[in-house]
């Protein structure tokens, strides 16, 4: 394993559920259906539009900020309730949200800024890229391929980058 300080926290949740993972077709179908709902939401909220993203970064409409802020508030209240009442998942597992290790914080500042550049250039973050292809903006297949190349190169350079 690499000796980067940030290694473990983003190892895709190995310890989160120790019991044999039940990946029945039914359970996986739920994620597919939730994905469909999210794709509809990204489209009907128009957050997937390059025009809306431009409007946001030019501070010419509060719409995107209102959407993001209200999404965070709803999610924060829900997460607080889940923690407060120690709710379990439908699968029976206790719900635990691993904290993100701060390290030197470089990865968040630099990686975040790089993503921000890409967000404004493509007018889309990862979810909207997939929703845009569904909406018929098929050239975004190239953007997704390019994003995969970017992620792959990060994996290759990871040990050499400051985190």
């Amino acid at each position, binding site marked *: 394993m690499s000796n980067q300080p940030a290694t473990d926290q983003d190892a895709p949740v190995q310890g989160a559920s120790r019991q044999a993972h039940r990946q029945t077709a039914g359970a996986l179908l739920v*994620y597919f259906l939730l994905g469909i*709902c999210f*794709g509809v939401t990204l489209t009907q909220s128009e957050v997937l*539009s390059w025009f809306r993203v431009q409007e946001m970064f030019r501070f010419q409409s509060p719409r995107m900020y209102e959407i993001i802020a209200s999404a965070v508030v709803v999610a924060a209240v829900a997460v607080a309730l889940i923690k407060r009442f120690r709710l379990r998942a439908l699968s029976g597992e206790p719900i635990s949200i691993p904290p993100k290790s701060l390290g030197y914080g470089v990865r968040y500042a630099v*990686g975040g800024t790089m*993503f921000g550049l890409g967000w404004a*250039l493509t*007018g889309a973050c990862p979810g909207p890229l997939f929703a845009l292809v*569904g*909406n018929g903006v098929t050239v975004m297949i190239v953007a997704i391929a390019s994003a995969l190349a970017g992620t792959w190169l990060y994996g290759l350079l990871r040990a050499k980058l400051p985190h």
Partner: protein
Amino acid sequence: MGEVNWECSNAVFMVAFLSSPWPWYVAGPVIGLFVPLLLLVDGKLFGVSSSLRHVCAAVLPGKADYFRYDWKRTGLWNLLFVAGIFVGGMIASHWGGHRDIAIADSTRLALTKLGIHDFSGLAPREVFSWPALLSLKGFISVVVGGFLVGFGTAYAGGCTSGHAISGLADLQLASLIAVVGFFAGGLLATHLILPLFL
């Protein structure tokens, strides 16, 4: 008879609502609800960019530790979620038909000055289309922009969903730094880089 009519108009109302743009106070809370929904189904953390990592791990892991894990066990749910996003986009576009985005007049003016003339659809076709891919503006927007999205989200360990929604909702300082970075990068690209090539 009356009951049938009521149900009918109710269904018409639902379709009309679903197919018109949602106001922010519907869109935002609905997006936020995906965090508890995924947690409550099986403790999954809402985030989309990890799907890119899972695809790399599945297709071309190479020698990088970063891609050497059981992607089927940890990532299959995420890949199905993303496949759903694509299908959801298809369904919504079917309802919505030809869709124009009602952006602010000031944004329209600023973009016109930059040379954007086509304001129909979700993104300007003069930049985001197959023929435009070979132009400088198309290449930078789609290929360079896509690459930065992939590299940046992997480096930062999350995107708008993972950091700006899930992370901020869980009051993570790391996510706050990432979100400040998102906006620093976005403002830089919009105000300094876009005018150079559009």
